[in-house]
């Protein structure tokens, strides 16, 4: 693909569509009886969704033989981070009205809040080091090792979701299953690289044939 700028714009616009809809529905009082709960839940789900999509880029690009998919990974991750910031803000604002003591008490006593907060904090260094300059400064190897944290953050997010649900665990389990598959691919890729890359297999034989 020669021009990746436009596809990136398409992704950015589409990634922000849910936020625009959320804002529009909020302005029209169409978020339902409990708009605060809905906004928190929606931003949380979108965070997990975009994190998982960003983690799916590398397996998808290798399995499908579409190297240009790599261009979208950073934007997907940043969209996930942006929704994560909004999700955290809804909790701080609606649920705790920015009361430092109530938040501290929650963190100490409620494991699901702790897991959620820790997962969010893991994303901060990843967002900070997402610029080209930072990648150069860290060096590719160190940068990619650091960005493995995205798996931990997404797994923490799925766990956070699982822990807060009252009885219907289907959606958090679906996120966990998706993550499990992506992580499984990574493990497979580590030990059996020949089986996980469609393009290379057809292009040239495995090195140690």
């Amino acid at each position, binding site marked *: 693909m020669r021009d990746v700028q*436009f596809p990136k*714009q*398409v992704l950015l*616009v*589409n990634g922000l*569509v*849910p936020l625009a*809809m959320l804002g529009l*529905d909020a302005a029209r009082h*169409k978020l*339902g*009886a*409990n708009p*605060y*709960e*809905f906004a928190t839940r*929606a931003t949380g789900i979108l965070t997990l969704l975009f994190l998982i999509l960003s983690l799916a880029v590398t397996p998808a690009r290798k399995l499908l033989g579409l190297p240009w998919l790599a261009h979208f990974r950073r934007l997907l991750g940043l969209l996930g981070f942006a929704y994560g910031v909004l999700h955290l803000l809804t909790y701080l604002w*609606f*649920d705790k*009205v920015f009361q430092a003591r109530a938040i501290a*008490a*929650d963190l100490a*006593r*409620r*494991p*699901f809040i702790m897991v959620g907060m820790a997962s969010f904090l893991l994303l901060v260094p990843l967002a900070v080091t997402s610029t080209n300059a930072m990648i150069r400064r860290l060096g590719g190897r160190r940068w990619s090792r650091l960005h493995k944290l995205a798996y931990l953050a997404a797994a923490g997010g799925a766990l956070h979701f699982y*822990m*807060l649900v*009252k*009885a*219907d665990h*289907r959606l958090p389990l679906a996120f966990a299953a998706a993550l499990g598959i992506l992580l499984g691919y990574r493990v497979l890729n580590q030990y059996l690289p020949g089986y996980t890359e469609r393009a290379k297999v057809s292009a040239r034989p495995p090195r140690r044939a």
Partner: protein
Amino acid sequence: MLIKPPDPIKSSEISDPAALLSRRSFMRGAVLAGTAAGTALVYRQFATPSQASRAGEAIAGVLPAAEPIQEARTSLEAITHYNNFYEFSTDKRAVASRARKFVTSPWTVQVGGLAHKPKTFDLDDLRRMFPPEERVYRMRCVEGWSMVIPWIGFPLARLLDLVQPMGSARFVAFESLADPRQMPNIGTTVLDWPYVEGLRLDEAMHPLTLLAVGLYGATLPPQNGAPLRLVVPWKYGFKGIKSIIRINLVETRPATTWNLQAANEYGFYSNVNPAVDHPRWSQATEQRIGESGRRPTLLFNGYADQVGRLYSGLDLKANF
């Protein structure tokens, strides 16, 4: 032949004539708009359940509430479109549309167990036997939100008196309908069906304990537990079992659905108590639907004067 342009464009509006004429930029605009519209539709599909629902029918001759509480009533729209009724959906906003074809007439309720005169009642008979009264109660959900609901119903005690409990009866067990043909979620294992609940006999006989048949002047809509549900205003909302088909007087403490689901989180009593947290979240405050910010939660949901004596000497932390 002369063709006039349909919309004359002022020269000041033209930033880059080449780009405006470019087929490429037009295509790009179309792709952006088209995909965004598609994403918006997908979002709607997941985030906005249908608003369709079935309204109740007006109930005549309702006795007005004796002591209406001073807090504003929650809107009918909110009460009927934000429901925990897991037989239909675990999405509170989707229950109303999923339940709108629920058949609630004819309906019978079997009342028996340790009773001298057990009987199966037709719901229309129950409505005739007990004149409907309005009761405006706070409703506090275990999830941390609350409403003020103008129920219509009659005290459970009057029905129990009619079947004459035996001396050995110490608890009351309730059971909901579980009909897989009408209730789409019964096929899942989210909860053990049918939904069951229970009260101590003295709690069941308390004058505040209501069997509701309506709200806001009309019969209950399906999503609120039509045609007959329990309302125990000093307990968390899940104790208010919906669409009741069986009421049994029993000697030992009956099983209750949420207690079976997670015994460490949902006790048999489940009295509203700001000092006893849910293991995963605080119960000290609540989100009153229709308000912003959070209110402090009251002991026994504000009904301590009326029901406190039921629990004198009971350790409320151990018996949550």
